């Protein structure tokens, strides 16, 4: 039985000329686990919303969507509410009531169940999802991961047959995210609920999928089992690979006739076989003089060049940010959050702090931003103690801070107004926030070009996608001409394409003398763009090394590319490194 059948479905938003969805076909079998992927803005969310009438956007539709054989529009609202569960992106926004128990019961109340039934269902859900411990709590005491779990549980309490999840983990940290996805998988496996999921974090979900659909520009460009998808995308030569799991990305970059690997384990075996083949070929070509040695050499050569880049700084140079023996706690009675932290960040480098939740990374950033003050130890910025700067010196033209949530910076109703708002309005009057000779209009236009916002100037900031919002926030901060930029989780909730753009902007900034300190859970991003990486643990930086060295040295806290290929290319950290390594093999 097919749970959802979509035939030639097209959709046009009002006052738009380009259809958001064009002739989409999709068939979802009951009990299957389906992953829908595509760049942001490709129409994934629009399509998912069309699968539930109350959430469907208004606009011109053609084609049809059937739910268990009946036209979706004809399935009454009550049935749809109960049977089609929908979990959205932001965990916080979906919670309606103030108590966990009430939230769990919310959907059941809507359906009009009596108290005894609700009590049973709620108890069932609380037990299944392990919510008992915080059952009576207020929702605002929960962590992000718990909140999203609560959202899932309160949808599951209605016993849906179809569960739709729209990027449910984009706001969660990696550990909470994989816990959450694990739970979704468990539901699919144990209860047999059909799951349709969109995700950025495909590494976790693609291997589980029965069926993968890939969308681009409102069209379905490929579908099939995960490994079929890998081959099809490779044939298409599509840049969608950027959002695929690392093994698939490597697969795309390498000539191979084998089946597409999905997990790190499969990837390693695949790579092993490929390299064996190459070696055999090389042997046939009787030109086998210590191939392996030369290979690693070439990768070494590459890391050398990276090191050179970071090595430009002489040891005598004053570090841009210097922390010495910093101790901090929020209140006298509370335990220390930062413990004897010492750290140097050199001028013009991108320094990434990685590490688990609650280890004090964000607190450290607040200390450097002078929002909080250490009770012991000292911070120097460009060789001057942070306390000696006035607010104006510090925050205008010197230190910029990108908050984790870009929305917390948006004030005005258009992107343009919002940018001007940062430098005290459109009037060409010099002020503390904008003291240079250049006209404000030029400054804004230049920053807009840098951050690629030119086409969005008349939009409302909240109508932008996650990645665009991130760039707008960055543009706002950059208008104050910071020489030190602190960024808190800059890649949270944005897809790989946007990450790439962001990374390139950051690189450009460092070329112009900006020093960037960022904290991130995103190992892949740090490996790709950071110069040095520090591991934060228990209020202190445990190691800090150049990025490649850092990730190559770790066995768990490292990129998927490294985990997959470390036996063959110990220094390869990014997908490009691995592909380059294989290429070097081929070339011989």
């Amino acid at each position, binding site marked *: 039985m097919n749970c959802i059948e979509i035939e030639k479905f097209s959709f046009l938003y009002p006052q738009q000329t380009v259809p958001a969805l064009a002739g989409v076909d999709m068939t979802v079998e009951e009990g299957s686990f389906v992953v829908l992927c595509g760049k942001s803005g490709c129409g994934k969310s629009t399509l998912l919303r069309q699968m539930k009438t109350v959430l469907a956007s208004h606009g011109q539709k053609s084609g049809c969507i059937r739910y268990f054989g009946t036209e979706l529009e004809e399935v009454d609202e009550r049935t749809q509410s109960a049977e089609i569960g929908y979990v959205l992106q932001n965990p916080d926004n979906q919670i309606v009531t103030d108590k966990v128990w009430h939230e769990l019961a919310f959907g059941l109340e*809507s359906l009009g169940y009596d108290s005894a039934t609700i009590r049973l269902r709620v108890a069932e859900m609380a037990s299944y999802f392990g919510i008992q411990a915080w059952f009576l709590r207020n929702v605002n005491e929960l962590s992000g991961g718990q909140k999203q779990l609560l959202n899932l549980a309160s949808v599951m309490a209605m016993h849906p047959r179809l569960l739709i999840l729209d990027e449910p983990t984009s706001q969660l940290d990696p550990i909470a995210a994989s816990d959450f996805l694990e739970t979704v998988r468990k539901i699919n496996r144990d209860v047999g609920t059909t799951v349709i999921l969109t995700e950025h974090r495909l590494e976790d979900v693609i291997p589980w999928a029965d069926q993968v659909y890939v969308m681009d520009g409102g069209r379905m460009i490929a579908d099939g089992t995960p490994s079929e998808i890998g081959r099809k995308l490779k044939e298409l030569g599509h840049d969608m690979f950027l959002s695929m799991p690392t093994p698939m990305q490597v697969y795309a970059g390498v000539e191979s006739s084998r089946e597409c690997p999905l997990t790190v384990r499969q990837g390693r075996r695949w790579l092993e076989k490929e390299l064996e083949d190459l070696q055999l070929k090389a042997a046939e070509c009787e030109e086998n003089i210590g191939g392996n040695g030369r290979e690693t050499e070439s990768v070494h050569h590459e890391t050398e060049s990276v090191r050179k880049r970071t090595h430009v700084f002489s040891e005598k140079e004053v570090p841009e940010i210097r922390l010495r023996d910093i101790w901090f706690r929020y209140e006298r009675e509370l335990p220390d959050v930062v413990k004897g932290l010492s750290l140097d960040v050199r001028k013009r480098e991108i320094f990434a702090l990685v590490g688990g939740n609650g280890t004090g990374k964000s607190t450290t950033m607040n200390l450097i931003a002078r929002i909080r003050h250490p009770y012991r130890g000292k911070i120097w910025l460009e060789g001057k103690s942070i306390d000696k700067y006035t607010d104006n010196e510090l925050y205008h033209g010197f230190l910029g801070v990108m908050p984790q949530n870009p929305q917390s910076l948006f004030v005005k109703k258009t992107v343009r107004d919002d940018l001007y708002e940062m430098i005290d309005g459109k009037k060409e009057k010099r002020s503390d926030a904008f003291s240079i000779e250049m006209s404000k209009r030029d400054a804004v236009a230049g920053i807009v070009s840098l951050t690629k916002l030119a086409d969005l100037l008349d939009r409302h900031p909240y109508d932008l996608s996650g990645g665009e919002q991130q760039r707008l926030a960055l543009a706002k901060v950059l208008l104050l001409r910071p020489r030190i930029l602190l960024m808190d989780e800059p890649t949270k909730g944005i897809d790989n394409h946007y990450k790439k753009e962001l990374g390139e902007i950051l690189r450009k900034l460092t070329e112009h003398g900006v020093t960037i300190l960022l904290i991130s859970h995103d190992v892949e991003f740090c490996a790709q763009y950071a110069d040095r990486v520090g591991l934060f643990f228990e209020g202190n930086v445990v190691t800090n090394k150049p990025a490649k060295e850092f990730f190559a040295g770790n066995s768990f806290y490292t990129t998927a590319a490294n985990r997959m290929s470390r036996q063959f290319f110990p220094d390869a950290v990014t997908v490009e490194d691995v592909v380059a390594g294989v290429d070097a093999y081929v070339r011989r």
Partner: protein
Amino acid sequence: MNKRSDAFSACHPAVNFFYFMLVLLVTMFLSHPVLLGISFLGAFFYAVRLKGWKAVAKFNLIFTLPAMVIVAFINPAFNHYGVTTLFYLKTGPVTLEAIVYGIVLASMLFIAILWFSCYNEVMTTDKFVYLFGRVIPALSLVLSMVFRFVPKFNAQVKVIRNGQKCVGRDMSNGKLIKKIRYGLTILSILITWALENAIDTSDSMRARGYGLKGRSSFSIYHFDRRDVTVTGILAGLLGVCLLGFHYGFSFAQYDPVIKIGGIPLTPWSVITYLAWTFICFFPFLLGLWEDESFKKLEKKMRMDRDIPWYLKEDEPGSEQKILKTDMTFTEYMNGGKETEGGTECELY
């Protein structure tokens, strides 16, 4: 939350709410000194039990007492009824009757506020929301959402404020006009953020069937046998009181001469006052009774575990204590689990 468990708070919210309404309304319309005194003592003991000596004393000395003094003197300064003139002010003669009446009025206000402070402890927001969930479901949902949003917004204000501080707009220093402008910017950012993100919330509500006909309302509260008993007792006492009031035992007059009903004491007036005493002391006594039963229970446990001291190291003494505070009286009375519906115990 290290709150002490309180027997009366563990009763059904309806019992809590109507009890407070009853006591407050009656107190606010009394001008009888004896009844007011009883009400005061009841409120005072219960407040101390709920919040501890220090909190009650601090609250009363700093906020209530000064207000009370002012109120007590306003009356005689502007009102000159009565027969016993004590001295003259610019506004006219000051009489004993007016002074006494001023004090009575002030204490009435004072007692009401004291009861309210107990009310705030006992009637937590979720109880209030639940209580009106059946009568006014939409509004109680609005309230529940407001209680969800207020802490969320407060947290967001902090985030926004830090963000603004880092772009050089610090609300905590600078000129007043700048401060106000920065404050408004923060508010403005918050409002947009709140409204735009609420669209998700509305989607989430509709996705879970909000707006379907026949919405029911669920709660974790139960009107159990003890609540019935408590309601019965209170209703009985109230009946006696009202009867007494009807016969004039609550009568008090301060103009032109002081006249107080029920005094000198008659058997009937004593009964009325006793009933009122029981009403006012009810939550306090219930608490005492609970303490007492737990003491007995502890004794029993101790007898069971009469073992040499050197083996007692492994004795889970601390756990026992946790158990004691965590277990509500209801659970104890019901033997922990013996309530209707098998899933009960998990829900509490």
